[in-house]
């Protein structure tokens, strides 16, 4: 019985460790998804052919979750709302925050991408999106480094702490 309990504690700590390290991985994935989505938006704006709503819908259909969920929500709200795209972007971001494994600073950066979205010239839109994409690139590099540094460590520490707890309880 003691052994079964010990195994359970170790397994539970392993799962907790995995979950924690997954947050690091998810953050990298989310940043990458938004980077690619913003690149798509930038090229749509550059060619001036599609509206933001059409582009957001395209991203939602071709992209991966959870960014695709955010863009679908954003496109739906654009279609039905009379407020500015800037406002809709921020409120959609805040509402979908829980789906994303992003830090508050990342969210603030993404909010910048929506600032004045759809209400300024092609040149200004492009410049702003380029700036945010560059910042996201830096964030992604940081997130990858963090994942490499802490991801494995969190997993190992979790398993070891589970082992220690089991030994102490035995």
């Amino acid at each position, binding site marked *: 019985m003691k052994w079964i309990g010990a195994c359970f504690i170790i397994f539970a700590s392993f799962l907790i460790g995995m979950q924690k390290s997954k947050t690091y991985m998810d953050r990298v994935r989310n940043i990458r998804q938004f980077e690619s989505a913003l690149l798509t938006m930038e090229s749509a704006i550059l060619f*001036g*052919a*599609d509206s*933001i709503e059409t582009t957001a819908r395209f991203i939602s259909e071709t992209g991966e979750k959870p960014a695709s969920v955010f863009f679908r929500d954003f496109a739906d709200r*654009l279609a039905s709302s009379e407020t*500015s*795209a800037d406002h809709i972007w921020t409120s959609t971001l805040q509402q979908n925050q829980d789906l994303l494994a992003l830090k508050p600073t990342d969210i603030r950066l993404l909010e910048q991408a929506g600032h004045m979205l*759809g209400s300024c*010239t092609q040149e200004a839109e492009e410049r702003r999106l380029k700036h945010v994409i560059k910042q996201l690139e830096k964030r992604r590099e940081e997130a990858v480094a963090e994942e490499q540094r802490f991801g494995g460590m969190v997993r190992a520490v979790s398993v070891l702490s589970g082992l220690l707890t089991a030994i102490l309880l035995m």
Partner: protein
Amino acid sequence: MPYEAILPYLPETISRAVAPILKKDANIEEIRLRTGQPVELTGTGQHLLQVIFTEKERLAFVHKLTKHSFYRLEEQMKKGYITIEGGHRIGLAGQAVLKKGLIHSMTNLSFFNIRIAREKKGIARHLLPFLYENGWESTLLIGPPRSGKTTLLRDIARIAASGQGDYGIPASKTSIVDERSEIAGCLNGVPQLDVGQRADVLDGCPKSEGMMMMIRSMSPELLIADEIGRTEDAYAMSEALNAGIAVIATVHAHSYEEAIRRPVIREIKESGLFSRYIDIKPKHEYVVRDLHGRAIKSAPTFS
């Protein structure tokens, strides 16, 4: 109803007030929205509505108009108007943004003039005996603003491109150079107004370049252009006419005499490029002139 495409763009209160008037009065030509001011409808008379176009409504109207994507309409905005479904044109005024002395963009759009596009099919029928004699006669339509030049030109284009059996006119390959999207009212390249089955439309392109492009690429039998007046236009038209292509164009003037006082038009007249000149007088009265500017006869009035 031609105005139906406009209503979804209008704020609800304004749409509700405007719709019954537009339905009742077919002569309404413009809906004018000015921020903080009552909505105005103009046509034969003037209707000042009790509804105010508010700042909140202005923002919502701009978002609807641009589909939250200002950048898409930047080029159109530089020209001062945008075209919506149905070929209706929305004239814009606000704050111009200049770059090196040229209009770069427009911001704080606060004044809107919605021009309702109405087709008047058959308006050109009475003129057909003067416009077509074993082929299309190169013709210059002369008239002041709002005299119906473009409406007449559109109907000529429609007849030319679809043919008119009772007058023995076959359908011809008709190329329309629609610099200001007024003739065909194109939206995303698709004509919103009826310009006939064999019409090819080059939308939003400067006339002179557009005419040359159409001559090279579309082998037209008839070339249609609106509001000519620059030296380059005259050159492009002479290229077309010397290539055996008939040209029907409009020019902005109150009369034939006033038109030929303009150097470009005088030059065109002297070179004998056009075989017909049509003076458009108020109430759809026309004076048809020959190559030398002599009145052939006054064509019957269209009503």
